[in-house]
């Protein structure tokens, strides 16, 4: 397992997402109100690229005709067939036990710590005064 510095945390605003490369893996990082989550960019169905999908809320219903719309912006719909994945877990809504996209741990680290540590920022320069997103792969 290697740790990859993939982006400055300021690059992804709340509600936004960014496609990053972590040691050759395409990973999409989401910012949900200041919390960061990372998923494999590939839909397990036909390999649609999730970072091009639509972020929506979770709609559930206790009774036909009643629409409970919660967790706005926390479900990513694949840009192709609209399967929904929970950004926090990578699990699909339709079949959470079997259909999921891989979830990665993502941490916010200070540039100062990273510069001293054994980490590699592969594509950009780390400045000690900024925060960075680090993924274990």
């Amino acid at each position, binding site marked *: 397992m290697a740790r990859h510095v993939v982006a400055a945390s300021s690059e992804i605003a709340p509600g936004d997402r960014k496609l990053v490369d972590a040691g050759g893996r395409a990973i999409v990082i989401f910012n949900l109100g200041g919390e960061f989550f990372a998923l494999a960019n590939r839909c397990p*169905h*036909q*390999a*649609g*690229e999730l970072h*091009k*999908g*639509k972020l929506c809320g979770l709609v559930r219903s206790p009774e036909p005709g009643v629409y409970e719309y919660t967790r706005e912006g926390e479900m990513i*719909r694949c*840009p*192709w*067939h*609209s399967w929904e994945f929970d950004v926090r877990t990578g699990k699909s809504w339709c079949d959470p036990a079997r259909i999921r996209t891989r979830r990665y741990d993502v941490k916010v680290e200070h540039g100062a710590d990273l510069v001293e540590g054994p980490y590699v920022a592969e594509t950009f320069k780390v400045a000690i005064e900024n925060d960075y997103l680090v993924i274990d792969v």
Partner: protein
Amino acid sequence: MTRESLHPDPERATNRLCVIDCDIHPKTSMEDLKPFMARHWWDTLDTFGARPRHGFASGFPYPKAQPQAARRDSWPPSGGLPGSDLKFMRDQLLDFYDLDYGIMNFLSPTGQGFQNSDLSVAMAYAANEAARVRWTGPEKRLKASIVVPYEDGEESAKEITRLAGMPDYVQVQMLSRTSELAGKKRYWPIYEAASAHGLPVSFHVFGYSGWPSTSGGWASYYIEEMAEHCTSCQSLLASLVIEGVFERFPRLKVVLIEAGFAWLPALAYRLDRNWLRLRAETPHLKRRPSEYIREHVFVTTQPMEEPEKPEHLMDVLDWIGFDRILFATDYPHWDFDDPRHALPAALTPSQRRMILSENARKLYGFP
């Protein structure tokens, strides 16, 4: 050097996936059609609107699940609608999958099925002219379907005859939701002209028949409209068979596009059983319904059937016949199928090749 010469023997070519995509939706704009339409029709559209057989002045009775029913990644960086930018279509489809050919079916604007058939005639002409200017001229891998104003059989036949000699056009395109069942005599001039010129007739799902969306009345949801394509295509195909269209036009080939296909064996079995009981009513039929279907009907794969157990899909493909199945992506629409992932893993290399390209190569006469 032609493309084919790069791959003289597909069998031995490296790992290249030979693909012919039998359902691509390029977006021609109204502006593209304008040079080919009389001022009167342009003014009519502008003043009174298109008036298809439903009640919405614009938009659809069943709102789509996403804008333009398109893949969300298919909006061209140049800013137009999905499918409108040839360069982007090359990047995302033609070059990306290295397609041998792509068959274009035009959904809108084409004028098909409008309440005013004369307007349909004028728009179909313009759509067919624009197809050459915008698509088949600049891109030789793209082949067009001839848009016919199908509610007017005679005018449709004229349009087929006008264009049939040009290599740009490889089939005749109808929509599945005609105002009457497709086997009725009013549509026969289309089948006659198409089979005279050796062109398959395709029925692409959608359109508006004007009738309730189900035999039990109007459904409520888009998902029901999508599911209903299977049922209307069953009725459509039953009509073609039972009315004797394939007896009358023995060289006619029909392609059902985007209708699914798992329903086809059950329909054929059902028709055969019913025909055994009821054939006194249809003396014009000389063979079992399933025989006409086996001989004359092709289906496209997209949106691919996804059973609970993959081996069940192999049964269905086998019952339909591996030589009757044509691969399609439906680009740029949301229920797009990727040729690398959509087909069942259990297909033999030969079956896979038939579905991905060889069946279409034969049907459309591609080199």
